[in-house]
């Protein structure tokens, strides 16, 4: 006899709203670390919510709705960053940080004067994104390479440089007043 699996109901509107109320700060924080731009981070979360709602029938009940939306939001943030700054993930020939600071990122640092945000200033875009995805979001290196459309060695090198710079910078910051 073949057991018939009943399709579980997709997440409801109320569950989506509950997820926004409970977890949108975390989605926003992740998107902000990737884009360093409040508007892009807001758009990324909004796009993620609409995409998740439109694909709610594909949601696997074994996962948590909040986690699923989080992942979609991070993907949206990466797409928006790429769209706004074409070539942002192309590896650089020389090991430099993006010293130019946009008004948005300056404002972001002013409002969110955190140690990690301050430390990120010494990283280039690709170093920061690779570090955030690997260290904070716990993506696999292969996933990062696929998403950024770069070679896995490029991701590794960006991660190594990022870790190296951050280790030094964090030690410096621990001795600096905020």
């Amino acid at each position, binding site marked *: 006899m073949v057991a018939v699996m009943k399709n579980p109901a997709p997440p409801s509107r109320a569950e989506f*709203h509950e997820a926004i109320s409970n977890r949108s700060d975390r989605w*926003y924080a992740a998107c*902000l670390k990737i884009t360093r731009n409040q508007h892009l981070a807001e758009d990324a*979360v909004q796009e993620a919510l609409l995409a998740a709602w439109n694909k709610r029938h594909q949601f696997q009940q074994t996962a948590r709705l909040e986690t699923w939306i989080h992942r979609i939001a991070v993907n949206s943030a990466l797409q928006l960053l790429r769209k706004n700054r074409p070539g942002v993930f192309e590896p650089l020939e020389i090991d430099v940080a993006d010293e130019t600071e946009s008004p948005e990122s300056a404002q972001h640092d002013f409002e969110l004067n955190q140690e990690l945000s301050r430390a990120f200033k010494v990283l280039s875009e690709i170093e920061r994104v690779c570090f955030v995805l690997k260290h904070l979001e716990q993506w696999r290196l292969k996933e990062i390479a696929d998403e950024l459309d770069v070679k896995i060695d490029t991701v590794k090198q960006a991660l190594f440089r990022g870790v190296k710079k951050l280790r030094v910078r964090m030690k410096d910051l621990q001795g600096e007043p905020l």
Partner: protein
Amino acid sequence: MNDETLTLYYYNDGLSTREREQVAHALATDPAVSERYQALCRDLQGIVDTGIDKAPADMVQRWHEGLDRAIGLEVQAAPKPAVHSWSFLLGVAVTAALAIGVGIGVFISGDEQNVTPMMEELIVDNDVTDRGNSSAFIRGLQVHLRESERGLTALPASTDSDKALLIMGIIEQNRLLERAAEQNDSASLARVLRAFELVLVQLAADDVTAEDAEALRAKLLFELNVVLTKLAHDTSDEPQSI
């Protein structure tokens, strides 16, 4: 054993089983490597999210509202319930007729016979522009059709959520004009707009394949172009009217 290898070992990613075994062996037998690895672990474990960047309340509100808007549009655009199964069949028949019409239109090239079912409705019905209050409606309709054409042309470059919002927006506007057409005693224009909606709803469906979506988009663009041409011709060719 360099720091890069130790970093990959820490993340448990990017090393082969053999390479991991080599690192484990070095850590167990070489105090200097072990010390460097412990320092690395301490530093990496210290790089944590010390605080969540809280989203402003008005931003969170916008996310709630954006979701509600999308759901509202989706509900409006959803096909009628199964109790009206006859209307579904009628819809399928209309869509099939449209497809056949487009097919015939493509085969009959470049002459006056090149009419689609949507356009045919306009040819048959000559009761719109000869009414005093209808010119504003026709202008509004032309704007709507042109904007729809522009939106559909840009559709492939849009994100999934943008696509859904765009199509839902067109459907919403389409319905307003459909009601206006009925109030203008133009049953034929209302039917044309309903036919547009039917294809738009198919295009907005979650399960439509990329190939089908492209075919539907092409069909809509073709029909929009034909209807716009017809409207432009008739409104500039006084006293003849649609």
